[in-house]
């Protein structure tokens, strides 16, 4: 409804604007208005059309037809003309997208088969149409009086034009549907090769016709040269531009958006001036970029495809506004006949060609649907005939326009339908998804009275992934740790969650002791956690822990395998507990498509060397199709470690690390928070009530408030933070009694020695500060709340704070920093952020501190307290923009869309060996 209101407002404003009659002072004067109106209105209509199961591009076309000069005239004739300029660039960009899709490694083994298929199809389609047109020529309202030889030449010429396909529409549908697969490949390559063949046939027919009509022109090969130039020149020119762009991407790689846009705009105009075809040039350029700068090409393809929406909107809306409905109205009987004939020979041709070329039976009956569309090339050939043969030539051109009106409208619907049937489209809700994590999103627990309750797991990532799963559905595989977990699952260990609105399946996994303690408490938290966090805590590596870790990872893999009913299922693995799951899964399901997000830092290669099983860990991660880290530094560390440790077996190319024939994309995708959810909490009247409650509870009455929220972990730098606070209160005695620092500390892994030690240290530090700096009747220096607070309490607490401290000694990201920023829509408050937290890479407008430098840290706290409001607002505004712009849904969709769209190859990853027998020796770093 909101979108319809928006559409109505835009249409009303546009209609009001059109009342003015401006004086056009330059060409393209109407361009921004036309493109802006088209982008907004056509997007809404495309969305509405998608809701009834049609392709969005049909909606864009519809917009162009309805709002164009033929009907409502909101897009005037001048605007429609101006849109054609953008259209040229759009065609080049669509071609580029199509070219980037074409992988030589994928096409080469089937090149002979594709060529055979295309030639057979063209022969049947063109031959059938030519025969039919030749026989029916006397009754066609084109040039009925032509002599028999001329008639057959004309029939050949017209058949070549009528038979052509539309690479632009095919690529556009593929881009919109984010389609991948065999049908997609066959359709794309056939439209390109087929059109090349048909343009060649057209040229020969035209030459023959010239010879027949004007015998003196027999030796004039200008047209043949022209057509050869159009084909070969377009491909060669595009390839040259592509090579230059590939070099630019590889060696410079900056300002890519601007360079790409200028290249498309200037390139398309230059192509027209040189008599080249922008779509062929674009495809050739994309093909070269995608296959020469392979790593960057893949990332570019994903990026351009993600940004292809405006291009598609403008292209199809412009095409719709340029469609000549008049031509269709006057020539409809011939048009209907030709459409029917083309359809007949297309179906016959694909059937025969499929047999001739051994096309897979699953896709063979669907190929014709992808080849039905027609657009620019048909129009172009029609225009050539019109310019060559004045009089009846214009009737052919009108016929071409009318044919395109039908084929361009119906074609996308048919192709989308075919992609759906072949299972190659990315549906709106995405492919089936399995999330795997150690921790479960909902824990069923017995109360004292024996009843069961089911709280959601706290923590930003769990909340975020839960939101994603609610939206998308699927299965979440996790360790069942609740006391009542076993009681509520069915015989397949399934339970629907969330309890209040079941929307996805939680598959619980039972990990028995001592395996759980060894896998989780042992290897994961005493080994990998300190290994990855540079905090001078020795990692402990025990053989028994490693064996248990492998066993549990294998257990996860087996559970995922059981849940993978659909081969297209995506598997999204979480964190360092499950580093070997992909390798184990790959042994069972070589076609599995997996991504892992490593939430914590990745150590430098030297640091990693202390781990006895580093090669196994590296290989385990490499078994994924995509490995994502929080920061570029972590990504780089991982890539360097694979090159160091795995030697000649691996190679790195752009974002890819290749092992044998398996490519793994290694990327950095910083995690975000659910920004909108926090805005909802901010706007909730209950937040004010909660604020009052916190004021009472913590005794916060008008003083300066600082806040820190952490798990009680040695990586969080809490003792350093308290030391800095101590130093600040020692230096600035006027703050005593007027400053309260609220430290929320959530005990965690207390059974481990290193954790209980840090808890004790913090307890003592708080006690010492309160003893030293307390003032009679003044505010307590440190309020220590040693348990978790729900986000509904954290938000008002953050909003009360003058400053928030995140002082991690090493941290993957730290979502508290982002939650603080998200809570401050009043633009007040200062974030004091450790330079060793991943969040510091994004939130440069925080006060960045080194928590080891206590003097500097204390000074930073002082700066935060004294910072003028205008400075606070400026910094907070910038940080909010960053946090809002990259929320947790962007994070998840970046990873999942990246995973979905990665190029596929047969995966020949070596299956992991069976776990060895447990050994007893501990391996701690000396």
């Amino acid at each position: 409804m909101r979108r319809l209101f928006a559409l109505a407002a835009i249409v009303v404003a546009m209609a009001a604007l059109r009342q003015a009659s401006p004086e056009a002072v330059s060409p393209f004067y109407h361009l921004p208005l036309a493109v802006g109106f088209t982008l907004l209105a056509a997007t809404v209509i495309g969305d509405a059309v998608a809701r009834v199961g049609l392709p969005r591009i049909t909606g864009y076309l519809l917009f162009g037809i309805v709002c164009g000069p033929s009907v409502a005239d909101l897009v005037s004739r001048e605007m429609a003309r101006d849109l054609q300029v953008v259209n040229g660039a759009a065609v080049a960009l669509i071609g580029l997208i199509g070219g980037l899709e074409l992988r030589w490694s994928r096409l080469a083994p089937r090149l002979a088969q594709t060529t055979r298929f295309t030639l057979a199809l063209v022969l049947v389609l063109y031959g059938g149409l030519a025969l039919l047109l030749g026989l029916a020529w006397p009754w066609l309202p084109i040039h009925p009086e032509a002599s028999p030889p001329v008639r057959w030449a004309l029939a050949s010429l017209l058949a070549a034009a009528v038979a052509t396909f539309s690479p632009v529409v095919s690529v556009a549908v593929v881009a919109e549907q984010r389609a991948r697969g065999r049908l997609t490949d066959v359709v794309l390559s056939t439209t390109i090769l087929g059109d090349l063949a048909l343009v060649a046939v057209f040229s020969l027919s035209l030459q023959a016709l010239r010879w027949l009509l004007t015998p003196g022109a027999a030796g004039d090969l200008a047209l043949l040269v022209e057509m050869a130039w159009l084909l070969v020149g377009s491909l060669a020119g595009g390839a040259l531009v592509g090579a230059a762009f590939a070099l630019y991407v590889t060696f410079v790689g900056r300002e890519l958006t601007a360079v790409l846009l200028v290249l498309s705009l200037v390139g398309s105009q230059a192509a027209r001036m040189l008599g080249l075809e922008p779509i062929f040039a674009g495809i050739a350029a994309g093909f070269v970029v995608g296959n020469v700068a392979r790593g960057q090409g893949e990332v570019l393809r994903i990026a351009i495809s993600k940004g292809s929406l405006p291009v598609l909107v403008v292209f199809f809306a412009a095409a719709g506004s340029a469609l000549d409905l008049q031509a269709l109205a006057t020539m409809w009987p011939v048009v209907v006949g030709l459409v029917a004939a083309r359809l007949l020979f297309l179906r016959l041709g694909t059937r025969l060609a499929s047999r001739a070329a051994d096309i897979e039976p699953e896709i063979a009956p669907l190929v014709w649907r992808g080849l039905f569309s027609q657009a620019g090339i048909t129009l172009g050939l029609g225009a050539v005939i019109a310019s060559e043969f004045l009089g009846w030539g214009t009737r052919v051109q009108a016929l071409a326009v009318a044919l395109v009106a039908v084929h361009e409208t119906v074609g996308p619907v048919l192709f989308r339908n075919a992609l759906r049937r072949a299972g190659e489209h990315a549906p709106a809700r995405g492919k089936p998804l399995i999330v795997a994590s150690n921790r479960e999103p909902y824990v069923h627990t017995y109360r004292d009275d024996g009843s069961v309750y089911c709280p959601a797991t706290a923590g930003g990532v769990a909340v975020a992934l839960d939101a994603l799963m609610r939206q998308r559905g699927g299965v979440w595989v996790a360790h069942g740790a609740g006391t009542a977990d076993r009681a509520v699952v069915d015989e397949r260990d399934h339970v629907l969650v969330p309890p209040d609105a079941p929307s996805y399946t939680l598959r619980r996994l039972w990990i028995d002791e001592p395996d759980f303690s060894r896998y989780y408490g042992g290897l994961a938290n005493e080994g990998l956690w300190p290994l990855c966090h540079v905090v001078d805590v020795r990692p402990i590596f025990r053989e028994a822990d490693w064996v248990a870790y492998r066993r549990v990872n294998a257990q996860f893999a087996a559970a995922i395998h059981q849940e993978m009913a659909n081969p297209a299922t995506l598997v999204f693995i979480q964190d360092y507990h499950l580093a070997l799951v992909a390798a184990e899964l790959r042994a069972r399901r070589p076609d599995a498509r997996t991504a892992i997000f490593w939430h914590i830092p990745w150590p430098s290669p030297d640091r990693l060397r202390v781990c006895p099983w580093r090669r196994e860990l590296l290989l385990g991660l490499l078994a994924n199709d995509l490995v994502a880290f929080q920061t570029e530094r972590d990504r780089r560390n991982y890539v360097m470690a694979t090159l160091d440790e795995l030697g000649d077996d691996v190679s790195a190319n752009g974002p890819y690390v290749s092992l044998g024939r398996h490519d793994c994309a290694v990327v950095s995708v910083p995690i975000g928070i659910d920004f909108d959810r926090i805005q909802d909490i901010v706007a909730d009247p209950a937040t004010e009530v909660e604020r009052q409650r916190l004021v009472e509870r913590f005794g916060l009455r008008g003083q300066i408030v600082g806040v820190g929220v952490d798990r009680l972990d040695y990586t969080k730098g809490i003792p350093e933070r308290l030391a800095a606070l101590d130093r600040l209160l020692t230096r600035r005695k006027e703050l005593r009694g007027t400053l309260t620092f609220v430290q929320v500390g959530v005990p965690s892994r207390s059974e481990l020695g290193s954790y209980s030690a840090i808890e004790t240290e913090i307890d003592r530090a708080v006690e010492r500060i309160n003893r030293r700096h307390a003032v009679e009747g003044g505010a307590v220096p440190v309020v220590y709340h040693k348990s978790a607070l729900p986000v509904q309490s954290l938000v008002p607490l953050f909003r009360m704070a003058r400053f928030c401290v995140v002082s991690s000694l090493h941290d993957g990201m730290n979502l508290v920093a982002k939650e603080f920023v998200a809570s401050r829509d009043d633009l007040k408050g200062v974030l004091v952020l450790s330079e060793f937290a991943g969040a510091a890479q994004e939130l440069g407008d925080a006060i960045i501190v080194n928590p080891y430098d206590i003097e500097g840290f204390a000074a930073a706290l002082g700066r935060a307290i004294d910072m003028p409001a205008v400075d606070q607002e400026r910094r907070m505004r910038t940080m909010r923009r960053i946090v809002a712009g990259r929320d947790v849904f962007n994070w998840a969709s970046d990873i999942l869309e990246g995973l979905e769209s990665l190029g596929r190859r047969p995966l020949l990853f070596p299956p992991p060996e069976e776990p060895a027998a447990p050994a007893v020796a501990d391996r701690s770093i000396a």
Partner: protein
Amino acid sequence: MPWRGSTAERERYRSEDGGADALDVFVNASKDRFDTSRLWRWVPGSALLAAPALWLVPVGWLLGPSALGLATPELVVGASPLLSVAMAALGVFVGLGLRLNSPGERRLLLASTAESIIVMGLVGGAGAAWLAVTGGTLTPAIALALGAAAIAAAASTPSTSTPGPTFARLADLDDVVPILLGALLLAAVQEPTWRAALFVVGRSAALAILFAAAGWLLLRGSHGEAERVTVVAGLLLLLGGAAQYLGTPALLTGLAAGALWSRAPGEEFVRRYMDPIQRPVVVLLVVAAGALLTITTAVVVAALVFATLRLAGKLLGGRVAALVLGITARESLGRLLVWPGVIGMAFLVNLAQLHTVDPWLQLAFGAVTLGTVVGEVASLWLSRGVEDAS
């Protein structure tokens, strides 16, 4: 504390270039590959490259009809729609900065208004006097005044220097009055009565607000990044296109839309998706200005006079603004405010396109474009050693 901002930091200070390139961010460009900034280090006086007009205007001029002729007059004129969009984007940024939450902020608006009125009065007054003598129309004088008032807008505060906050906010706010006044005065010149002029300006602002409200609804209901990018791009094009269609400055439509969004929840979305769009457009804008520039003796003289008057106006205006704000380092603030903004040049480019036959306006355009280059040189020199002004 002395100003210790490096060239790179000064670059960070300026928001008119927009944010990082969208594709660069996506592909993690140049993190581990060839860094083009190395090239700049080889160029003598590379500090000057922090000023975009200083090198992009000459680049445009070299490409343009006056030099190599690669950018033909038709091509340059054909780029005018992009200029409108660039100005709409800049206007939106100014509008987004209009969120005045405190008395201190309102005082900043007052100070910036006083500062820009002084500059406009000085430059516009001198221009009007000159045109009265030579028999030109009033429009070039208005254009000169508006071109002089703009300051390079600043979006982020450098962490190692402190003149930032006040300067940055002033730079955001001091464009408001010139934009409003400029739109009104230009309409008054074009329309027969003040009432008609007010109607023209009001109609443009109302349509912009309608587009902005619709865009806001779309943005809040959009699914995914691609759709948000599409909506923001469409909005900027609509705002720029509507202004061009109606013959009013796109800065005004952008300002109206930005002001509306600054009050709407989640303005961060707009900013986030605007940044990548803005940068390439601004580069094109400055290059186009260079390409349109015809350097004659009259233009050079006018540019030097313009730059001198603007400099004097900014120093004086800076003192007055410092007085209003109670800042002791009055001279420092004025010296920071000297930095010329792309907005002024953009405004003149657009105006020169609307009135191609007015030779006085073409002269004013040349004076402001070349004067901006001179102003950037002056401000590079003046901003050295500026004391803390906040």
